[in-house]
């Protein structure tokens, strides 16, 4: 069938122009205006050449694959490490009961290729961290359909690291726009969501606004152990304390394991009864154990289509883009504010300025590492640290095989390890690239 005929709705925007098509928002994102050139070649380009990556094949990912395939994108890749669960079926519409247990990315890719003629969807059934820069570099654009801050943070840092700089006529370094891979981020919770456009190292990146997502405050262990007051406290007791006590030698079961959920529920119910606390149910237990986010198809559909629409406009340049964040709040009436996040000049991922950390000279390396884990900006998980020009060698602390050899450094004060102003090179699983932290001794 003639593709032009099939995609005639999309093509209206690609072969036609108008005064507004040329009136993009380049002044606000890019320094130069790039006018839209209507052409019959754009659709074939979308079909065969433009490479687009969808990260996540869940609630947003399923929608994104459908949306992009029906916007004419013909070369799509999708990456997801998850397998299909029954509770996905109320919204992840590319999956059926018979698919439960199979790879999300593979089932989704097969479905879209079966339904939409001529589209190629390549599935990657793995973690985003299993792919390296050479994989991510080949895409024109990346759309994120993720539900975790950690994964967003990792991929954001990866895509920022792909940007190269060039020297302008005045010698100032500017990002080479051909190395900037635009990233669109969608997220939903219940009836709310957001769609956000990121040009790494050009506009605000995910890390620039990390403080919008403060780490969750955990219930203190002493409350859980000694003064439980509500159903959640009882569930946390069974889940975090009683299991390890009752089965000290067996490995921790998966949170998704229904048998384990049932066990936690029964133990939590016993504890609740003993304390006269009400409200422990299996559903509530699962919610506490897994931090379940309520989700429906409608919201995923809205947010994904907003993201896909922006991807389409960015790749084809047929209209202005969202600048740069749209909220959707459908709980109490409807509110849809749009606003522009600003870059953070000291962003760990996208600024060229290096992170400085005030360190008391007597602070031990161990204390410093703890501080890096708790720091709202760094939020490291398990840092390994090298220093340029370290006083006792460059390697300060390493995880893995070198851990034993470097462990002794943990209790040394920083003044015995580095000089004031030293650069610490931190490797951490939270981020795909090293982070340089400058030590500033405070008196």
């Amino acid at each position: 069938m003639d593709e032009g005929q099939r995609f005639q709705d999309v093509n209206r925007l690609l072969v036609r122009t108008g005064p507004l098509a040329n009136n993009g928002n380049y002044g606000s994102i890019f320094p130069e205006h790039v006018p839209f050139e209507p052409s019959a070649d754009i659709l074939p380009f979308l079909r065969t050449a433009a490479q687009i990556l969808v990260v996540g094949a869940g609630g947003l990912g399923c929608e994104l694959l459908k949306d992009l395939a029906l916007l004419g994108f013909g070369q799509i890749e999708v990456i997801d490490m998850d397998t299909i669960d029954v509770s996905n079926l109320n919204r992840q519409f590319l999956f059926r009961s018979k698919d439960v247990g199979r790879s999300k990315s593979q089932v989704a890719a097969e479905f879209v290729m079966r339904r939409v003629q001529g589209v190629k969807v390549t599935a990657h059934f793995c973690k985003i961290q299993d792919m390296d820069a050479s994989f991510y570099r080949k895409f024109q654009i990346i759309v994120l359909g993720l539900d975790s801050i950690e994964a967003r943070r990792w991929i954001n840092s990866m895509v920022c690291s792909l940007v190269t700089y060039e020297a302008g006529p005045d010698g100032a370094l500017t990002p080479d726009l051909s190395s900037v891979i635009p990233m669109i981020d969608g997220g939903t919770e219940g009836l709310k969501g957001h769609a956000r456009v990121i040009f790494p190292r050009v506009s605000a990146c995910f890390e620039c606004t990390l403080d919008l997502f403060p780490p969750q405050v955990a219930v203190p262990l002493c409350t859980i152990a000694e003064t439980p007051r509500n159903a959640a406290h009882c569930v946390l007791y069974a889940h975090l304390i009683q299991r390890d006590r009752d089965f000290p030698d067996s490995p921790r079961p998966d949170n998704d394991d229904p048998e384990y959920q049932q066990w936690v529920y029964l133990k939590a119910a016993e504890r609740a009864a003993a304390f006269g606390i009400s409200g422990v149910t299996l559903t509530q237990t699962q919610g506490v154990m897994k931090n379940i986010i309520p989700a429906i198809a409608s919201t995923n559909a809205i947010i994904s289509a907003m993201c896909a629409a922006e991807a389409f406009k960015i790749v084809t340049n047929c209209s202005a883009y969202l600048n740069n964040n749209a909220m959707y709040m459908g709980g109490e009436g409807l509110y849809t504010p749009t606003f522009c996040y600003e870059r953070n000049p000291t962003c760990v991922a996208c600024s060229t300025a290096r992170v400085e950390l005030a360190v008391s000279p007597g602070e031990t390396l161990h204390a410093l590492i703890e501080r890096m884990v708790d720091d709202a900006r760094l939020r490291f998980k398990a840092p390994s640290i090298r220093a340029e020009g370290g006083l006792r060698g460059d390697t300060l602390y390493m995880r893995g095989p070198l851990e034993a050899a470097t462990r002794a450094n943990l209790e040394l004060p920083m003044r015995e390890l580095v000089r004031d102003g030293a650069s610490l090179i931190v490797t951490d699983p939270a981020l795909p690239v090293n982070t340089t932290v400058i030590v500033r001794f405070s008196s």
Partner: protein
Amino acid sequence: MEAQKKQRYDRQLRMWGEHGQEALERCKLCLLNGSATGTEALKNLVLPGIGSFTVIDGALVTARDLGNNFFLEEADLGRPRAECVTRLLKELNEHVRGSYVHEDVGSLIRTNPAFLDDFSLVIATQLTEPSLRLLASACRERSLPLVVLRSYGLVGTVRVAPIEHVLVEAHSDNTPSDLRVVDPFPELLAFARDRFGHVDTLSSSERKHVPYVVLLLHAVAEYKAAHGGALPSSYKEKQAIKAALGALAERWFGEGGAADALNVEEAKAAVNTALSAPSIPPSARAVMAEAEARLSAQKPTLPPEPGQSPTFVPDPSTIRARNFWILAAALARFVRAEGKGTLPLLGVLPDMTADTSSYVELANIYRAKAAADAARVHAHAVAIAHDAGLPDDAVPVEQTVRLCKNAHSLQWLRFRSLDEELTPASARAAQLGALLDEGGDAPAAALYVLLRAADAFHARYNRWPGTMDDDIESDVPLLKQCVGQLLSEYRQGGATLTIRDDLVFEMCRYGAAELHTVAAIVGGVASQEVLKLVTGQYVPLNNTYIYNGLNGTGVVAEL
């Protein structure tokens, strides 16, 4: 509910509960037109398990449909669209019944609007203005909620158009604090007195576990004793309470020792919200006033019970509305009598630093008082039902309890009709004018006017502007004429609007294209609104959403 369904619907049951799901499963939905915009809305309702749907559409599947509609496949080319999309939509959920009618929507509305009697909600997509207006008044005659959506180029709109909607569970992000610290009920006072009457004799560790509600009760009692019974209400007086709490902490724990007394900190943080006398929000007052007015006028919304014929089964949503008004009237009686001006107690104790037994006891005291209040409300409801000739169990107890738990957020929304919106004399011209100043290059209000102009164009030339591929530009002045006529209509309404020429051109560029993403966005928005209307939970949009794909923004207006 069966375990299998519970698992499948887990993520949505956490939003609207099993009673919301039951309401959804009783809904009989009608979709008018099965193009991309319609199927995208319907998909999001089949997935969560709407009772049944019927697609009405007279079109045959074209190549263009295959390019923008996900619920069609290659082999469907040339076959009835209603049949094909129904087949693929039903695949999404085996619990949902689906059927289709292969008939032109416009002529069906003109010749046989009685087909609407079979449904409890209608979604209409991609209709011309004359058909839409006929449909809207036919729905209104039947009190049938209508949701209208449209995709046009980079622009999309959703219009929510029931006559009215009542809701109990708003699921507001801000649940009110209702601790009754300023006017404590006897059981609460007894608890504070019996368990913590002698705070000064407690050990230091025990002091750190006195629930902050008790600390506040003490502080308020002391303040009242020192001020001739007056309550702390102004900002300054509340600051005085905070200072008193600080002094208490210092007396208990010594200077600086209060730093880890979390309960004192919690008490200070709660002063501003907990020390305000519980008030009744204006929206809840309006609901109660209307309920009593309907009761005394015996408006027909009250008793549609079997009677005419033994087989007559009233629509569940009608019964829900009837019970809502009965309960709201019962609530008004409670507020006047037992409540002494306040709503029933909410009965929810937030988590706070406390030892287990005193927290649990306190939580039970609040819960018991809330249950007692709800029982009083229920007694009023039974009396009202009885007087209206209804059986005593017409209002189930769990409905009363739910209403009492949400008494602060009761809402009664009225929606303007499409006739009011589209008729020059009642159109909201001034509102559009104000909106025109927002949105930079492409204000959403201008897009709305342009969509109406495209409708006028269609009425005049029987085709959409910009649909002749070899000649777009000659449609621009024709569309401008239509815009001009509309603007003169709005001028009668007292507002001078201007629409820039580049926007008129952009509209012609679209050539009425139905883009999949715009369809998915408005389909998603419309389905959210349908879920709110059907479950009677969360607050629906009143009444229009405009998606502006020219820059990815959106606007909400009551038109």
